[in-house]
């Protein structure tokens, strides 16, 4: 093939959080790593310094840090039998478009999943009986464990937190519950790298209100770090300034955990690391026996095709693209909802959410004081932290009072109900309500179903003529019941806090579509597990079908926790990379027998 590059030990497809974490581990172990990234090189001082970053129109409204749909989009339908349509405009999905990936423009909420989230099937049967589990499965849920426990994940979470400098307060140190932290979290072996962030006005009100109601409020663990910090790679971060230009923006302060702020300064200086920018991997190329791949085919921005041979291929792109690349490479079998055969595209899921808005007459919320991960949460109704014996659902939601931003265009409809969105009526309402509005967000679990899945679209193509990924998804009954229940709790909190003119936006009340979502957390489709009949990857994120292919991303989650995904993605990346350099590279083959 023309333009065949020298062989690498490992090729990384997509240099976002997962790719950067893996490349750092692998190069430190001495392996020769080449990363291939579709987007351009971007860095703090050259691309989003403080004189460039606080620009809502450019970064948030026009989303200039994100990959445009004209480069690649998805198609979507609610159920099989419908004709899927392409997602043409900006929507829920936030593909990265630069070195650093979505890790550059994310908000920074840095959660560990609950122990329950990794073992929903087993723990539901243990706590509520096998019949309960059977009945959920009969209803159409496709529950399955991850093949890895929280206890096994804890050291990897710890490693990622140290790299990211995560701010927070422990609520469970080695089993000892600590008030003020999240008492529902799984045990952690030590405190967070940096202390929790400060409370804004609304956070302080939310904390006092929920505490008074007998709940357990705590500050959300944040990748907007509270003080200067030097991470284990020797990279220095600075303190968050509460500027409120965080999600969809870069960070000019070196204070948002990102590949730029935490990993690339060390990684780029290693002589055994190379990154090809503005170069897109089209697919992996299999050996003739089909059991392994020999490398990846790519095309540069200028249209030149090439081939990167490697002993190991790590697919670490956006969740959607991980699944798409496996399908385009012919690795594994496409999932079929009619027969439940095949594993690629299986267990797609989203994040079940709602928001509750209230108004406080005369208040000065000063919403411009913000951070992407700035908020106070209760987990009393998340996961299985409350008794579901008499409830008609499993799962739950984190319920947060947040202060992420006061960007004026984004919030221009945040006015009391009944007011027009234009004319002097809007001006009067917005002039008053900008300072008086406060929001609660319920970020819930999502359980996989037989009918929700990913496949290649038969009609629509990307700019290279390759099929787009097609999403078939709608809310399921269990998750709709869950978010109805937790939203009512959030309304009670808003009332108790003194909020008036309360508005509720429960997203599961109508069919899912990509333009309505408040969450961007798209998961599954290439899930890990201990059973090759129901998972695409083994518990080390290794393909069951091609043993030298590993893939890390939220695509590996068999179900969604009531949390943001990034910390779990980062922890899985550490786990996969260590499996490669500690075991696989010396003895290539399946790390788990099928």
């Amino acid at each position: 093939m023309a333009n065949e590059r020298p062989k690498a030990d490992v090729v990384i497809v997509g240099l976002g959080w997962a790719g950067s974490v893996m490349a750092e581990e692998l190069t430190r172990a001495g392996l020769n790593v080449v990363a291939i990234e579709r987007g351009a090189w971007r860095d703090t001082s050259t691309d989003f310094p403080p004189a460039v970053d606080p620009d809502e129109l450019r970064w948030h409204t026009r989303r200039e840090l994100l990959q445009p749909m004209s480069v690649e989009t998805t198609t979507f339908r609610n159920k099989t039998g419908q004709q899927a349509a392409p997602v043409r405009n900006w929507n829920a999905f936030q593909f990265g478009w630069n070195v650093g990936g979505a890790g550059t423009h994310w908000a920074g909420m840095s959660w560990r999943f609950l122990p329950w989230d990794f073992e929903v099937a087993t723990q539901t049967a243990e706590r509520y009986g096998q019949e309960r589990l059977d009945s959920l499965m009969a209803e159409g849920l496709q529950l399955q464990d991850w093949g890895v426990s929280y206890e096994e994940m804890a050291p990897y979470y710890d490693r990622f937190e140290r790299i990211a400098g995560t701010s927070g307060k422990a609520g469970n140190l080695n089993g000892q519950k600590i008030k003020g932290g999240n008492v529902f979290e799984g045990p952690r072996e030590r405190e967070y790298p940096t202390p929790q962030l400060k409370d804004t006005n609304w956070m302080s009100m939310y904390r006092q209100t929920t505490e008074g109601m007998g709940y357990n409020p705590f500050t959300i663990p944040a990748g907007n770090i509270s003080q200067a910090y030097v991470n284990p790679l020797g990279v220095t971060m600075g303190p968050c300034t509460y500027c409120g230009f965080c999600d969809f923006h870069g960070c000019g302060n070196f204070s948002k955990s990102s590949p730029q702020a935490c990993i690339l300064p060390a990684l780029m200086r290693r002589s055994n690391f190379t990154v090809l920018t503005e170069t897109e991997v089209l697919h992996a190329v299999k050996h003739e026996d089909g059991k392994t791949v020999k490398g990846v085919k790519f095309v540069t921005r200028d249209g030149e095709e090439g081939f990167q041979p490697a002993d190991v291929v790590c697919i670490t792109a956006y969740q959607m693209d991980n699944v798409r690349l496996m399908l385009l490479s012919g690795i594994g079998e496409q999932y079929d909802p009619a027969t439940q055969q095949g594993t690629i595209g299986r267990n797609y899921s989203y994040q079940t959410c709602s928001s509750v808005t209230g108004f406080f007459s005369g208040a000065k919320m000063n919403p411009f004081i913000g951070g992407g991960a700035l908020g106070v949460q209760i987990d009393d109704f998340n996961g299985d932290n409350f008794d579901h014996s008499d409830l008609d659902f499993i799962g739950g939601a984190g319920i947060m009072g947040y202060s992420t931003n006061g960007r004026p265009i984004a919030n221009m409809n945040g006015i009391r109900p009944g007011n027009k969105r234009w004319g002097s009526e809007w001006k009067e309402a917005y002039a008053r309500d900008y300072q008086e509005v406060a929001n609660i967000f319920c970020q819930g679990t999502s359980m996989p179903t037989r009918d929700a899945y990913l496949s290649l679209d038969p009609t629509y193509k990307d700019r290279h003529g390759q099929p787009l990924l097609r999403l078939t998804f709608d809310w399921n009954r269990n998750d709709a019941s869950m978010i109805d229940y937790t939203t009512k709790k959030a309304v009670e909190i808003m009332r108790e806090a003194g909020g008036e003119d309360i508005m509720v936006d429960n997203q599961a009340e109508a069919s899912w579509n990509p333009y309505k979502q408040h969450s961007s957390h798209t998961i599954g489709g290439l899930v890990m597990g201990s059973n090759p009949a129901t998972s695409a990857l083994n518990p080390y994120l290794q393909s069951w079908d091609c043993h030298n292919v590993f893939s890390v991303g939220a695509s590996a989650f068999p179900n969604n926790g009531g949390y943001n995904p990034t910390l779990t993605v980062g922890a899985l990346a550490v786990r996969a990379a260590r499996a490669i350099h500690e075991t696989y590279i010396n003895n290539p083959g399946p790390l788990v027998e099928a």
Partner: protein
Amino acid sequence: MNRREALFSLGSMAAAGGLASRAGAAELKGFPKQTAMSADHLPTPARSGGGFQVLKSETDQKTVKAVFDRLIPADDFGPSASEAGCLEFLDDQLSGDYGAGKALYLEAPLSPENEEAIMGAPQFLSTPRERYETGLKALEAYAQETDGAAFHALSPDRIDEILTGLEAGEIDLGEGVNGQAFFELMLQNVREGYLADPLYGGNRDMAGWKMIGFPGARYDYRPYVDRRNEDLGLTPVSLIPND
């Protein structure tokens, strides 16, 4: 050249490709030594002077002004949309990547009924610039047909009535124009112009930010976090430096 002019000049050069843009696909080994701002990430101010680029027709300009100044009229809370520069903002936005729909997926086929049903809103293969071109002409034709007058000559009450009808999906602007969607597009853009950084031609004198009390492009609120529930009295600042 003062600082303000320098910034505008630099941005315009970058926009015109006058500065070296990134070379394209690159193989990077070692930490990039480049320390200058990436040309394509410099702020790109709205074009100033030289007249409208997209809204060239005088009738179109008057129609947009008539609509925008009812969506955001002058009152005790601040200037009107046109006084705040929202027409210049719109024209500049429509003349660039946004107007050209550069980020959008505009590949056929588009089955309008199916896509609207699935996505919960009408979908288009046309760009924002094209939608304004057809939408403004349709508005003018509607006024001529129903009122026998130019749209911009209608009374404020009558314009409000038409806008209310468009918002509710009760007015048909004819073949090829979805009136309700066009209303939403105009409402989105006029409020963007009123609330975006003055760099982009609107929000003149930061009137939109003063209306709500947004301090603008500030980057450090650490001294204020603990002053909860206080009127902080912060004067807004723009990305355009003071002279």
